[in-house]
Structure formats: structure tokens, C-alpha cells
């Protein structure tokens, strides 16, 4: 007696079921691999966080014992900026990035009059133009303001701009 499924004999039906199960297994495996690929295939975009960390570290550097450092108010701090603030703008070269990937700029203003007192920067200043534009493949920019006073009670507004490019690694 023949046990027919879809009009096929017992031997044929067993083969069909085996093929069916393999097909289902392949579909399920394919879907799982695809989902894992979606989750882990794209990189995390950490540039906003990196720019904020840089701004936060620069803010730490501008103030000492809660007061604005006197040396940052002089114009010759430009040469010492990266060294004094312990900023290392060298980046990995594996991706053959064009030019520097980081930029930081600090402008210090009189809090009362908004007159600029000093300003200094470091890194690739060509990245500044990305901040005026919008898009995922552009550099991440963070502009942070800090209110500070010096030991003589003079008040300042410290504007810190930090920019991180690293587009190839973070936004695919």
C-alpha cells in the first residue's frame, strides 16, 4: 500500500520532507545570519561622543582648582595648547585617511562685554566647514560653553569647539 503525500510514494515523500526540512533550515539560518549581519555589520557611530569627550577634557584643562588658568588668557598659549591639554591628534593610519581627523578650537570671551580675550586651536582646521552642513557622512561637531571665573573674580565665557571626522570608520 502506498502512503501518498502530494501524490508521491512513501520513499518519494520521505525525500520531499527531507528536502523541505533542509529548505526551512536554510531559510531560518539565512535569516539569523542576515539579522546578525544587520546588528553587527554596521559600526557604532561614536563620533558625537568622542567630540564631547574631547570638549570635556579641554574644559578640564581650561580650569584649575575651579578657576580659569591665567596662562590660557594669554595669546601665546596657542603653541602649548595641545601639549598642556594632553591632546594627541594622531590617529590610526589603517584607513589611509586624508589629512588630520580631529580639530579643537577654544575662544575665551569676557562674560560681561563678549569681547574676545584669547583663542587657540589645534588639528585639521579644514574640518570646520563640515559643521555648517548637515549629513551622516560629515564630521561630528560639538560646541560647548563653559562659564568660568579667575581668582580675581573676572568672569569669562569659554567656547570650546571639537570636531571628529573618522567618517570611514563610523558612518558606512
Amino acid at each position, binding site marked *: 500500500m502506498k502512503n501518498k503525500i502530494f501524490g508521491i510514494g512513501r520513499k518519494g515523500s520521505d525525500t520531499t520532507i527531507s528536502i523541505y526540512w533542509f529548505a526551512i533550515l536554510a531559510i531560518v539560518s539565512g535569516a539569523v545570519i542576515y539579522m546578525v549581519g544587520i546588528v553587527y555589520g*554596521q559600526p*557604532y557611530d561614536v563620533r558625537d561622543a568622542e567630540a564631547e569627550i574631547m570638549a570635556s577634557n579641554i574644559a578640564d584643562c581650561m580650569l584649575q582648582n575651579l578657576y580659569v588658568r591665567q596662562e590660557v588668557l594669554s595669546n601665546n598659549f596657542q603653541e602649548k595648547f595641545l601639549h598642556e591639554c594632553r591632546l594627541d591628534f594622531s590617529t590610526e593610519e589603517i584607513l589611509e585617511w586624508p589629512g588630520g581627523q580631529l580639530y579643537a578650537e577654544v575662544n575665551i570671551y569676557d562674560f560681561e562685554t563678549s569681547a574676545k580675550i584669547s583663542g587657540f586651536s589645534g588639528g585639521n582646521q579644514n574640518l570646520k566647514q563640515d559643521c555648517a552642513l548637515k549629513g551622516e557622512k560629515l564630521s561630528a561637531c560639538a560646541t*560647548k560653553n*563653559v562659564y568660568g571665573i579667575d581668582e580675581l573674580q573676572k568672569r569669562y565665557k569659554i567656547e570650546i569647539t571639537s570636531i571628529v571626522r573618522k567618517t570611514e570608520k563610523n558612518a558606512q
Partner: protein
Amino acid sequence: MHNKKAQASEGVTWIAATLSIIVILLISVFVTSYFASKNKEVPPGFFSPNINQKSFLSWLLTEDAEKENVYSSIKTKGNLDNYNGNLAVKIFKGMYEKEYLEIWVGASTLGEGLLDDSLNGIENEFFGKKPSSFASGAMGAAVVKDYISLKVKTDDKKFVEAIFSRK
């Protein structure tokens, strides 16, 4: 005849099962891609408290014409006065208003009752009432807003507080 019907119903069961598997997989793929695309960024503002804290502490250290700093003044008077209130508006609203949904600065007292560790803000003429950051009820409480809270103790149960609610 019965055998044919049984075969047909068995076939329908297999087709339905196959379709169910495919539909479940498609939903899983859709949900995964939706959430994967949303969670690939570290939210901005995660490292802002350090910067806001510096401004807050500098404000507390700022002295008025009588050489009394903001911290001492609030500790003595129990709330913001004309000088430090206007300065707080200029600093916090002037520099951070674009970044945050709500900003409140003022004196607070440690709450008693359902939320032992909650701070009850004292209303002031510069920032108004403290925004409600907690939804509390008989079953407990839940934080309903993502915010940064900076506080410095002025007395046993009194604080100077600055709150920045994220957008």
C-alpha cells in the same frame, strides 16, 4: 475518498506551517533592522554633565559687590536673590537654552514621604517652579524625563540645585 481528504488537510497544514515560519522570520528581520538602525549612535549629551558642572560651580563661587559668593548668599537667604538670580539666568539660559528643553536653578529641600531622596525645589522669580521630573503615585515612582541634576549641599537638608532636562 477519506484518505484523499486527510492527505489534502495534511498538505494544507504543512503549507500553513511554512508560511507561518516565513512570516515570523520576516517580522524578526524587520524588527531587527528597525532597532539596529536606531541604536547605532551613542546619544549626544552623554558627557555634558562635566561641562555643566564647571559652569555651576563657577557660578557658586562668583562673588557680589560685598565679596559674598553665590553659595554663601543662598545658604544665608535660603533662595536666589536679585544678583545671583539674574547671573544664573545669564549663564544657564544664555549658554544652554538651545541644548536643553527645560533649565531650572534654585534652592531645594530634601523631600519627606514617598520619595525620601527627592528634592523639593523652592520656587523663585527667575526660573519659576522646579519642573516635575518624577511621576509618583501609590505604587511608587518613575523618572519620566532624561535630565542632568547638579546639586551642592548648603545645610543638613538643603541644597542648591541645577536641572537640565534633555530634549
